[in-house]
């Protein structure tokens, strides 16, 4: 890395993205505390629910939006957590970058899939694969 090391209160300032990532992890985990409690209550409500009860739950914008936010924050946090785990155990740069890229891709796809399903359920769309050639 180029440039002079910078200090704040005699502590070296992170030269790359480490400090920002650390803060993002903590903020995401902090958000997940209330979201997790809400998810636990929702899990209790929805356990054993039949199709009509479950779709009625998604018809409430409050539930749908909060579940979408939970899914994105949770999967984002988990992807950062996997990045830390991979960085701890894989030291060969090529393998490390490949595995982190793969894990990020998986969680990105999972987040997109969740939002896709939640949006359809919130809008009360016809059951899939309606609208996809069927």
């Amino acid at each position, binding site marked *: 890395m180029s440039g002079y090391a910078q200090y704040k209160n005699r502590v070296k300032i992170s030269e790359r993205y480490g400090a920002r990532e650390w803060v993002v992890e*903590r903020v995401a*985990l*902090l958000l*997940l*505390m209330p979201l*997790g*409690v809400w*998810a*636990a209550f929702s*899990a*209790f409500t929805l*356990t*054993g629910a*039949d*199709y009509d009860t*479950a*779709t009625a739950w*998604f018809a409430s914008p409050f539930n749908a939006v909060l579940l979408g936010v939970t899914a994105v924050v*949770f*999967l984002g946090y*988990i992807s950062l*957590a*996997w990045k830390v*785990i991979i960085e701890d155990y894989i030291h060969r740069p090529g393998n490390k970058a490949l595995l982190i890229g793969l894990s990020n891709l998986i969680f990105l796809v*999972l987040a997109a*899939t*969740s939002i*896709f*399903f*939640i949006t*359809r*359920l919130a809008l009360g*769309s016809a*059951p*899939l*694969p309606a609208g996809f050639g069927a």
Partner: protein
Amino acid sequence: MSTASDADDDQTGRFVRQPNGRIRPLSPHLQIWRWHITMLASILFRMTIGAASVGAILVIGWLGALAFGPEAHAGVMAFMGSPLGLLIGFGLTLVMFSFILNGGRHLVQDTGAALEIAPANLLSHLSVWGPVVLTVLFWVVLFAAGKVSL
């Protein structure tokens, strides 16, 4: 400080010759350590991350079943109502409570608080055993409310 003379006639295997030629005491490895509750809580949080990743895929599968309509949903519910399905559900709730409590411990300790032995042990005990208690309670209430049955 150990010197070469300590180790020359050592029969215990407590010393090793490092690649640079120096004699150093052998570092204790994993099996030497007594298990601390703080260590267990830390390892369990990492395992929770792994289990929660699998759990996320299962929950997304349930979302997909709902989005694919009543037949797909009925199929998933029939499986989740079976003994194996209920066991998976129990595991999912255990992971959920573990994530909340152990994540809470992580957040508190990230601020630099509760790192002394007594509060660290207390928080670790809460995040290791708390999820077990909460999960059992959760399922007792689920059965009592008639939401699930065997």
